[in-house]
């Protein structure tokens, strides 16, 4: 559902999601993110990357999580990568694709 990768040398923390990010899954990954020790250190200034290579559906609650992280991390320090086209289109329709820095 979610895996965490830390590349402190390059200053990048990657959260890799897997499967359908529907409302139930989002509730679960939210818990996992909140409980993840590597994300609790406020001193760490890694850029945050959401890798959606294996995600084929995103609920609006998932887009909200992305927005929350984008705001928390600040401009240019949060990005979403490897979207499947269907998910990419979903972000486009949400009108938030520019804020979220999606590739």
């Amino acid at each position: 559902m979610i895996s965490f990768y830390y590349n402190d040398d390059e200053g990048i923390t990657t959260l890799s999601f897997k499967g359908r990010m529907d409302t139930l899954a989002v509730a679960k990954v939210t818990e996992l993110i909140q409980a993840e020790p590597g994300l609790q250190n406020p001193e760490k200034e890694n850029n945050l990357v959401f890798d959606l290579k294996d995600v084929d559906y995103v609920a609006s609650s998932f887009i909200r999580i992305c927005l929350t992280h984008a705001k928390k991390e600040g401009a240019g320090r949060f990005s979403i990568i490897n979207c499947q086209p269907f998910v990419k289109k979903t972000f486009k329709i949400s009108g938030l694709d520019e804020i979220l820095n999606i590739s």
Partner: protein
Amino acid sequence: MTDDLNTTANEILDRAQLAAAEFHQFNQEQTDLIVKAVFEAGFNNRVKLAKMAQEETGMGVWEHKVIKNVLGTQLVYESIKNEKTVGVISQDPLTGITEIAQPLGPILAVIPVTNPTSTAMFKILICLKSRNPIIISSHRGAAKSCAEAVRICYEAALSAGAPEDCIQMISSGSREFTQIMMASPKVALILATGGTGLVKAAYSSGNPAIGVGPGNVPVFIDESADIPFAVSSIISSKTFDNGTICASEQAIVMEEAIAAKVREEFERQGCYFLSQEEITKVEKFAIVPETSSMSPAVVGQSVSVIAEKSGIKVPEGTKILIARLDGIGKAYPLSVEVLAPILAFYIAKDYNSAVNYCIDLNYLGGIGHSAGIYANDERRIMEYSQLLNAGRILVNTPTSQGAVGYFFNNLPPSLTLGCGTGGKNITTENISAKNLINIQRVSRRRNNELWFGFDQSAYYNESLTADQITETYYKNH
């Protein structure tokens, strides 16, 4: 000054309203005679008008403008000549519904500089076919050729018995005047074809509008495509009238695996890949940095003119300038729509990335317009089509000539291409006469058996669920 403009606008619209009053009494036969006469007159002047338009605007290729004039007259006429647009247009005894076509009233038609004669004649034909007077507002840069097309059509219409003032033209051409006209309650509909500002003004006027704005057409070449065929098709489209059709290809996207082959084919067929330094020079000429949009100076120009104005040298006879880009948006000026023989070229690492490029291009100023795909894999064609926000997805087809219909497919021939709500349009259709009538539906009594056969007291019983009521509702049907 504004008072004078208001007075002039009112005079024009009063005349148009009188024409509308007379026109609505015409029957189908009288209407069709007028449409036929106007088609013939416009068609007979197709070469003269094409040359005039090219000379006056300095844009495009006159031979191609002849074909546009043929589309705007002969092909449009063929597509509407047998259509019922007057009185009862359909009757269904089973449903008891009779449809009656009514004209809308005066239509204000804004004509772009890129197609001044063809679009004018096209809009005149579809307006007359629907018994609507038309007021043409031409672009200042194409006023003479547009006026000549209007004169030819009007004289033909009058000679076939059309009401006086059924075709008028705004001679002022000022933006303020056009806006005054647009806002008048005497206008029934605005048919606006042009830039973003114009289309927005039409929609802000308070009158109904069918406005068609810019495109930014991505074309995906799939690994299953016939590459030499695809490249030849793209070249024939992007060079057509020097790329002035808003459905012309803007960017070519493909996977890395076939990129070298595609590039080689473009080069073999006479296109030139710009170096990074040359891209910067072309950007300076072709794009206005403040707005990140194409410069009017580049529209409809040939490769040789673009090269000269940009200060670069390209082989003689080059058909298209191609810029290899790595991104989309303001940082990549040539990723926006450019109505000239300049193409952006994107190489994606895989299929998903390629389609994502197309989605980004699509959303960069071209939502709802058109997109293209070259593929021989039906699954990919359908997947791509559902992912793009485009009114027309042209498959293995040159997008310029494909989107306007008739030549390469069965889309209705049209020079006004609906872009759906993404382009702030009410329709994604190719606009034609049928979009310019109000359809009244005379509905005869036909008791609905389901409704009258159901004991409606059940609705007042709160304990009955939707499933229970539905089961009873459809019982024995």
